[in-house]
């Protein structure tokens, strides 16, 4: 994780969501389970702090937003091959270490269930309920041949780097994960 920008313009008012809420921007660029998890934990916690939270999903991070029934996506054979090897949806996330063909990710998920840790899917749904904005990166969608119908409902309009920079310029927390 890298902190891109951090400034403290704290307004310590006891308000839940005001029009002047502080902003948090998370760039979710990874399809790894162990990266998607902290993205969703920080997003929901930021929302609990009354922050205006936006997650910008790009490259493999877009996989988090794929519908469970999206199947192999893309038109071009290279897009379809990438899709076949990377999977998608919160069920298809892999561990960055000791994934062992998905077994490692399954062990991690089983442990999380036993220890009552909220799953990435649960946190994603919670984030949507809490008003976290989910932005898919338009360019990466095009690169990977992803249609809006391949992604879950309730997302914001696909956006680009300019929109992300505009938001990060105003945000008190911006993280690339």
């Amino acid at each position: 994780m890298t902190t891109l920008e951090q400034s403290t313009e704290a307004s310590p008012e006891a308000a839940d969501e005001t029009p002047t809420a502080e902003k948090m921007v998370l760039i979710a660029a990874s399809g790894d389970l162990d990266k998607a998890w902290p993205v969703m934990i920080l997003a929901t916690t930021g929302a609990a702090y009354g922050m205006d939270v936006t997650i910008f999903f790009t490259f493999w991070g877009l996989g988090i937003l794929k519908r469970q029934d999206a199947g192999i996506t893309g038109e071009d054979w290279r897009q379809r091959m990438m899709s076949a090897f990377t999977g998608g949806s919160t069920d298809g996330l892999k561990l960055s270490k000791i994934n062992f063909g998905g077994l490692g990710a399954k062990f991690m998920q089983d442990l999380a269930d036993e220890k009552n840790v909220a799953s990435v899917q649960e946190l994603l749904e919670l984030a949507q309920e809490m008003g976290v904005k989910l932005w898919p990166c338009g360019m990466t969608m095009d690169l990977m041949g992803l249609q809006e119908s391949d992604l879950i409902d309730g997302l914001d309009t696909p956006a680009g780097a300019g929109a992300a920079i505009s938001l990060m310029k105003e945000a008190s927390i911006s993280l690339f994960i």
Partner: protein
Amino acid sequence: MEADVTVDARGLQCPMPVIKVSQAMKNMTSGQTLAIVATDRGALSDIPAWAGDMGHSVKEQFDQNNEYHFVLEKG
């Protein structure tokens, strides 16, 4: 101390205790109190940190049988 609202976050892990507390606090009015009991070790620092940042005050805090108890007053 009898609180106006209670959140039982026992068994829940980070970040859920803070999320539950924030959701409960949303429906409360200034001056009302919220009692929380949690077992997540992170809650010990997370709940006072969240409360301080949000302008709520910690009225009571104690541990009992590995359970962390807090009473917050909405700011």
